[in-house]
């Protein structure tokens, strides 16, 4: 997909018509729009979102998207239209996406929306014939899915959350949608329906008992699906709460009155997690200890009996055995006793040796006697050593639990202090944070319960399946409905495995790409991966050679990590695009970014600017004039096909006009675009 142009009419800062063609040159695939703060860069990004999806990310959503000058310039009760038209090309077909909305002026600077926005999609085929799509939203959806818009149209200053907290679900979802895994997802759902259809057919032909089992299996499958959905939903809730907590924590670091508290809380949280990890380690040690020698504590009776038996036999002289069987066998075979007497077969000496052999001990018995005797001698010592080791671990465990209790108390105290602070903003943030924590804990608990219920339903289903199989003989293995139902059932399992296998393969490919991009930008000796659980992690190697997860990254570093992820997923989708095969769809997607250099330092800005053209097939970026000038401009100038300056016209009057800010020629406030 290549975006050719956007035409904006009366949208936010743009009064009247503003036309903006983008670079469609393969070599110079970057279009840059630079302007002062408040001149309309974010509005340009939102113009795309509004046109395609009737959605914006302004604080007031779509409420104030109508340009004020257009209202002021209109007659009382007059109509004012707002529209955005995006022209783009995809797979040789040209599209014109247009969204319009009509307002009526009801006050000097206010207007009411009089109808819902209307969306049309004009489709021009390669032969030049143009038709209006009858299903414009669905057609657009197939080219640029709405769920994926955060990856094509994003605010660079707000993307760090992707790498900031646990966003595994979001990442897994992006992989699923961008890589065409949706095909397999849908196949699983439909195959389940097909299986259920065959089951209904089978129910008509079997006994009441058989039918009951089939119904129970069906109900269990339904439960498994519902519990699965619940688990997914709770994971999303947990991640959403964690993402919001992360944003609040970042904000609390900015205020002077909360900064120290927040820094202390982060340290405490880290200590808490470290203690938790040590607790898990000690619990494992305790388990190993119990497995190795726990039986000693419960074997007193057996040991006592054994002791009595051995002592009794020892007193009788039976134990330990003086002579072993092998020794006597050897003498008989050699034919002489150790005293030199000949031992001939049938002689008295021979009979005597055979009699002695009956009371001789075997090697196995001797060795058992030796080890049991040894164990009995050290039993008390071993038990006491075992108990002491266990007590020591329990003591350590208690220390860690106590430490975490203290941490919890201190964290609670910090929260109480922040909540009661006179600064309303901080207090409100902390209250929200507390609420989010509860939501997260609830999500973890509810997700765990649902997972456990799902596992139980799975086990119940296996039992019922066994019962069903035993009844199959009664209807005959050749029953066609039964055969087809079994086939559909096994294919549901196969498709499930295929889905996981595909997702893991894409994850591995993507992980390598993310790291490649990440390494080309990041300064530190770290690497980025998407781990088995679909978490975007940054790893560092310790001096002992072990890799560990870097939890504390700066906002700039998180932006680099997130940008690496987004550009990699777009690059991988491009690679998969057009390949033959049943699974991957892939696709060609543009990258439209507002403030991509937001929190980055000069060095990172320069590096990203240098490689920005490689991030996607087409890159459109909106940057502030201060970010654009200097190293950024120099680094990406060779790749820029079109460059525009956003000029803000202010009615306030300016002492000295600049390229970016000019006095308004009329009484209105608006922005215009100038090609540079």
């Amino acid at each position: 997909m290549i975006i050719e142009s956007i035409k904006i009419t009366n949208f936010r800062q743009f009064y009247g018509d503003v036309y903006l063609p983008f670079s469609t040159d393969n070599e110079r695939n970057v279009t840059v729009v630079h302007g002062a703060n408040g001149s309309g860069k974010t509005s340009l990004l939102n113009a795309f979102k509004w046109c395609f999806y009737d959605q914006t990310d302004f604080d007031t959503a779509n409420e104030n998207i109508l340009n004020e000058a257009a209202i002021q310039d209109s007659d009382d009760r007059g109509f004012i239209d707002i529209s955005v038209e995006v022209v783009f090309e995809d797979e040789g077909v040209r599209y014109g996406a247009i969204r319009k909305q009509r307002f009526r002026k009801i006050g000097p600077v206010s207007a009411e929306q009089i109808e819902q926005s209307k969306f049309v999609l004009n489709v021009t085929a390669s032969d030049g014939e143009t038709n209006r799509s009858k299903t414009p939203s669905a057609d657009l959806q197939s080219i640029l899915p709405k769920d994926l818009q955060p990856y094509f149209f994003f605010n660079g200053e707000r993307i760090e959350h992707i790498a900031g907290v646990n966003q595994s679900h979001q990442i897994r979802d992006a992989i699923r949608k961008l890589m065409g895994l949706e095909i397999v997802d849908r196949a699983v759902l439909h195959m389940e329906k097909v299986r259920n259809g065959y089951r209904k057919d089978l129910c008509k032909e079997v006994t009441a008992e058989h039918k009951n089992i089939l119904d129970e299996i069906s109900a269990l499958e339904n439960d498994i699906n519902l519990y699965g959905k619940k688990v997914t939903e709770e994971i999303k809730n947990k991640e959403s709460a964690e993402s919001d907590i992360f944003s609040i924590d970042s904000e609390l670091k900015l205020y002077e009155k909360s900064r120290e508290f927040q820094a202390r809380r982060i340290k405490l949280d880290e200590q808490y997690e470290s203690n938790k990890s040590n607790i898990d380690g000690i619990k494992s040690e305790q388990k190993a200890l119990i497995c190795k020698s726990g039986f000693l504590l419960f074997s007193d009776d057996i040991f006592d009996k054994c002791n009595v038996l051995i002592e009794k036999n020892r007193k009788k002289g039976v134990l330990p055995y003086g002579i072993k069987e092998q020794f006597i066998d050897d003498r008989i075979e050699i034919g002489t006793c150790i005293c030199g007497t000949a031992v001939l077969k049938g002689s008295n000496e021979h009979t005597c040796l055979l009699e002695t052999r009956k009371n001789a001990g075997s090697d196995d018995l001797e060795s058992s006697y030796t080890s049991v005797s040894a164990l009995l001698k050290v039993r008390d010592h071993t038990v006491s050593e075992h108990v002491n080791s266990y007590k020591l671990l329990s003591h350590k465990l208690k220390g860690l639990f106590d430490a975490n209790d203290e941490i919890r108390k201190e964290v609670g105290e910090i929260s109480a202090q922040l909540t009661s602070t006179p600064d309303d903003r901080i207090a409100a943030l902390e209250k929200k944070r507390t609420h989010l924590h509860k939501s997260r804990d609830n999500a973890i608990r509810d997700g765990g319960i649902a997972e456990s219920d799902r596992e139980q339903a799975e086990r119940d289903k296996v039992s019922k399946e066994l019962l069903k199989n035993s009844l199959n003989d009664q209807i005959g293995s050749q029953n066609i409905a039964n055969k087809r139902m079994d086939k559909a059932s096994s294919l549901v399992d196969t498709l499930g495995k295929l889905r996981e296998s595909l997702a893991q393969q894409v994850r591995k490919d993507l992980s390598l790409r993310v790291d490649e991009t990440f390494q080309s930008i990041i300064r530190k000796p770290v690497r980025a991966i998407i781990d088995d659980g679909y978490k975007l992690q940054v790893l560092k190697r310790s001096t002992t050679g072990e890799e560990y997860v870097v939890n504390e990254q700066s906002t700039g570093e998180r932006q680099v990590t997130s940008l690496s992820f987004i550009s990699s997923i777009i690059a991988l989708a491009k690679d998969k695009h057009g390949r033959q095969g049943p699974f991957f769809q892939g696709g060609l997607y543009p990258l439209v970014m507002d403030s991509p250099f937001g929190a980055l330092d000069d060095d990172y800005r320069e590096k990203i600017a240098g490689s920005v053209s490689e991030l996607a097939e087409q890159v459109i970026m909106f940057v502030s004039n201060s970010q654009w000038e200097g190293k950024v401009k120099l680094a990406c100038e060779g790749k820029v096909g079109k460059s525009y300056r956003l000029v803000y016209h202010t009615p306030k009057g300016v002492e000295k006009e600049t390229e970016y800010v000019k006095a308004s020629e009329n009484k209105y406030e608006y922005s215009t675009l100038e090609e540079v």
Partner: protein
Amino acid sequence: MKPAELMNSLSVEDQKILNGVLAVEKRYLVHQDLKAGSSVDKDIVSAITNIIDKVVTCDN
């Protein structure tokens, strides 16, 4: 197991059905907001049922 290995480990019969099913899903992928029980949803289920009916018969 990698996707290709998984596909190759299946019987010819299963491979035939799976490829047919995936082709049906690919064809209907343009319908993004697919509602359960909608006519498109029913069409897909029917198409998959036909594939299985043709492959799994009384003779095999």
